[in-house]
């Protein structure tokens, strides 16, 4: 189905993806994007723009009542929509991992950390228990957890927020995935811990060549972690560009407005400008016209 073959086979290729509430409004409107091996692509936009929904669609975890209505998702040359649900889950589990936003709710409070890292390796991917255990220890050590054995035996509440996020990064990288969906992984953290976590993700990603789809609303985080950016508004792609170019010369008015609304530490006296209501109204109108055009 891929109309534009790229030199290297992309890790993730999303084409014309539309997602909607069953019998209700559209949440994603013909979204196309690719993530090459080793690339970090940021997805930015305001809440409700559909950033997280793209990750959920890729991982096959759309909330109940929300379904893919058009388009294709290719993960490492496998067209996911051609697979039955069990095979699709198996394929996704083998290839893709999630780093979630809230490290507390993502961990089962009543289970020890170790099992929560090794479960997927053993049960889904058929690793031996010993191998899984060794891999978990190796990764915990890699994410700078000082006493990996003790942390494996600990419960989530015994760890700080930053530690829990390290555990989830270890769990995400443990099966050697080709793609990681990082869904606002630092939004709940302090700036200093955020910097540590971003550094870790960047280092591990560079070591392993894993492709990353990085959901964030923070233009600063975009600048630091990503090579490419996709800007979303109301489920539609507004602009896509290499990160340096997008920050230096944003071509879409919405991107320019998002940047102008971001407080800049180095320019404290520049007034913050919210995204203008007229622009929001115009974009909503354009989206509505597009929707009508599709019918």
């Amino acid at each position, binding site marked *: 189905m891929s109309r534009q073959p790229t030199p290297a086979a992309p890790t993730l290729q999303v084409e014309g993806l539309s997602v909607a509430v069953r019998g209700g409004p559209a949440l994603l409107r013909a979204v196309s994007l690719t993530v090459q091996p080793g690339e970090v692509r940021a997805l930015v936009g*305001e809440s409700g723009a559909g950033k997280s929904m793209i990750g959920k669609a890729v991982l096959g975890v759309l909330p109940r009542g929300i379904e893919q209505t058009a388009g294709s998702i290719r993960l490492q040359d496998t067209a996911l929509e051609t697979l039955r649900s069990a095979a699709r889950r198996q394929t996704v589990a083998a290839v893709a991992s999630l780093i979630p936003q809230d490290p507390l709710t993502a961990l089962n409070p009543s289970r020890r950390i170790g099992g929560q890292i090794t479960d997927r390796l053993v049960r889904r991917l058929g690793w031996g228990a010993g191998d899984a255990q060794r891999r978990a220890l190796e990764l915990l050590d890699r*994410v*700078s957890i000082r006493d990996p054995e003790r942390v494996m035996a600990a419960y989530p509440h015994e760890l700080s927020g930053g530690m829990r996020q390290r555990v989830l990064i270890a769990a995400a990288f443990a099966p050697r995935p080709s793609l990681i969906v990082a869904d606002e992984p630092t939004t709940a953290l302090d*700036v200093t811990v955020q910097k540590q976590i*971003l550094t870790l993700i960047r280092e591990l990603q560079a070591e392993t060549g894993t492709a990353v789809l990085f959901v964030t609303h923070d233009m*600063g985080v975009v600048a630091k972690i990503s090579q490419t950016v996709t800007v979303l508004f109301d489920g539609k792609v507004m602009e896509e560009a290499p990160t340096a170019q997008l920050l230096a010369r944003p071509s879409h008015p919405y991107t320019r407005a998002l940047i102008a*609304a971001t407080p*800049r*530490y180095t320019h404290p006296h520049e007034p913050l400008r*919210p995204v203008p209501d007229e622009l929001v109204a115009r974009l909503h109108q354009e989206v509505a016209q597009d929707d009508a055009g599709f019918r």
Partner: protein
Amino acid sequence: MTEPLFQISDLSLALPDMARKPLLGRAPRIEILKQVSFELAQGAITGIVGESGSGKTTLGRVLVRLLAPTAGRVMFKGRDIGQLDEAALKPLRRDLQMIFQDPLSSLNPRHTVGRIVATPLERYGVDKARRRAQEALERVGLPGAFAKRYPHELSGGQRQRVGIARAVALEPAFILADEVVSGLDVSSQARVLALLKELAADMNLTIAFISHDLSVIRSLCDAVVVLDRGAIVEAGPCGQVFDAPQSLVTRQLIDAIPLPEIDDSWFDKAAVAGGAC
């Protein structure tokens, strides 16, 4: 130079550490604030910044006297309110208002926006509470029919503006704003920050603005207090503290800001310390 609205001196606060309480007997006490001294100038917005666990929120709660200090003085309008009991605090409560981090959980979901803003006015026996509430809502940019809506019908930024309307309707001397924009999009955030700035100037409001985001503090505040493990490591006008930070903690906080510009050396400056528990 007018007298500062708050003068805090040698404020300490210790609370029982329930995590280490023995089965029988008292819990050991843990010091959360240690001999904190600073002033909040009348009509100024002062940022309170620090990592989580540094005591920002606890300090804020002492200012609005939801907590009483273990030692030290909390001079408000020239009077030590640190150890006043609830009855003595009652007449001061109207002057000490608060805006919360999560506007959804701090607004009663079963009440209309108009009622939410009017209720405190009625409690304080203000005349024409409904009309005053309507005016406060207009003031924060939620005119007309918004008063009839319920919190779930509003966006996050609009809800936060309801929280602001509820606080300013009482015409307080002081507002504590605890992480009020951290849950918002940049666009709503810009709107709320502009509104706070405007209200502070128009109403001569004194605001303590707790945040972990130095970019936000720098663009909004006149002065800043940097906390680390319950103690003040640095305080002063924003220009002074941010242009020439004296303490390591402040410099680390500044270095950790991801600026929206390409800078490959940013990560190299990271001191990836081992994960402390």
